């Protein structure tokens, strides 16, 4: 394994271990997601068709709101004991830290998504497992884009006093194109349509993912050193 890959891996290992022990984000994310599901059920009533029609939007609303809670905290742990400064002093390409943090956020968001989908399947009688393949593609591409931007803005706002206010203000406008594409793809996947029928959205989402990840990798060192 290259030194770069080892550094990215150790950041992922450290973040997941810290999260497993502190459960700072995961507990809040899961509880919040469950609450959202029950609220949707309560607000939309027993009409299953209505719920299914609204489900792609509801899913992503849940993922984004849960993401706001989790992604904003990504770099908070680095502020403790000035670990951020320690990361600045490490040699080598700092984008490995970004990559490790991004991978950690992806794991957390994926865990929340799996729980939300499983519960939706039970509560709303949605056949998510029958469309698991296309749905996984839609969710994976959407989650990658959201996590890429969220990780970058999490780093950007970590040292700012008004972090809780600034983070969503920066994040939400940046992910609008991503969300439109992700919701469209998720709708197509849940309806059992082939994803290629929503080809333009698929291309937009894939292109946005590439752009956001590349921007994150290229700019992270400057943000860390700022």
């Amino acid at each position, binding site marked *: 394994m290259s*030194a770069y890959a*080892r*550094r990215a891996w*150790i*950041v992922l*290992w*450290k973040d997941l*271990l*810290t999260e497993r*022990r*502190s459960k700072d984000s995961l507990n809040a994310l899961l509880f919040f997601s469950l609450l959202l599901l029950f609220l949707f059920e309560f607000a939309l009533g027993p009409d299953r068709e209505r719920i299914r029609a609204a489900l792609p939007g509801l899913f992503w609303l849940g993922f984004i709101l849960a993401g706001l809670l989790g992604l904003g905290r990504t770099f908070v*742990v680095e502020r*403790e*004991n*000035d*670990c951020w*400064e*320690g*990361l*600045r*002093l*490490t*040699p*080598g390409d700092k984008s490995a830290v970004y990559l490790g943090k991004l991978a950690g956020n992806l794991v957390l968001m994926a865990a929340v998504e799996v729980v939300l989908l499983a519960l939706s399947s039970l509560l709303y009688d949605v056949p998510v497992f029958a469309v698991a393949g296309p749905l996984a593609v839609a969710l994976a591409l959407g989650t990658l884009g959201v996590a890429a931007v969220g990780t970058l803005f999490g780093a950007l706002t970590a040292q700012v006093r008004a972090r809780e206010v600034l983070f969503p203000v920066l994040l939400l406008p940046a992910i609008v194109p991503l969300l439109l594409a992700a919701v469209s793809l998720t709708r197509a996947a849940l309806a059992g349509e082939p994803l290629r029928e929503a080809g333009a959205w698929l291309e937009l989402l894939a292109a946005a993912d590439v752009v956001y990840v590349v921007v994150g990798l290229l700019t992270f060192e400057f943000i860390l050193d700022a």
Partner: protein
Amino acid sequence: MISARLLRRSFGRACVLEDVSLEVGAGSCLALLGPNGAGKTTLLRILATLLRPSSGQLTVAGVDALREPALARVAIGVVAHGSYLYEELSALENLRFWTVMHGGDASPARLRAALVQVELDGSASERVRTFSAGMKRRLALARVVLGSARVLLLDEPFTGLDQQGRKWLNDFLIAFKAGGGAVVVATHSFATGLDAADRLAILAGGRIAVDRPCANLSWEEIRRLYASLTDGDGSLA
């Protein structure tokens, strides 16, 4: 090892460091004394490449640290106010993380040997959040020991250490020097930190007011110099 020339640093209109020059050679230790707010931490942060000076020149381990900070950082070890330790990880896990981040060999045997060196081998698997300030300080030093640092920058390293810990740290610094390393210890109290020092510099009002070999100074002279430059006797610090 460290060569700083006419370092100046301003924050807005406030000039915190003014034309500070110092040399620290291989196998030597400089004790940087000064009251709170004298600019010691700012100077150490500049030497560590964590802060850019407004003007001046800085060479660390033969590298122009202002032009190539990333290269200079390979030779620099820092123990600052913050311990750079993750509270939810154990001592061993923290060492593993930082050793890999610095591109070093993170084999368990090597990490355990570093913990033995700082006398924390008995707490290897305990989470850092259960550690005392002194234990965190030792673990921070173990982190530095495992790196490839040839230049050690310590900011108030004796804070939180008991008498035994202070003696241990002094012995550690003497051994580090003997291995050819260069050390800068910043402290606001001259009651500690001078045992390993070869030279003493007193920072007052953002300037190096005194820079002398320790061998030529008695405790009483140091105390008098410090008091005359800082309006304090230092023993209270």
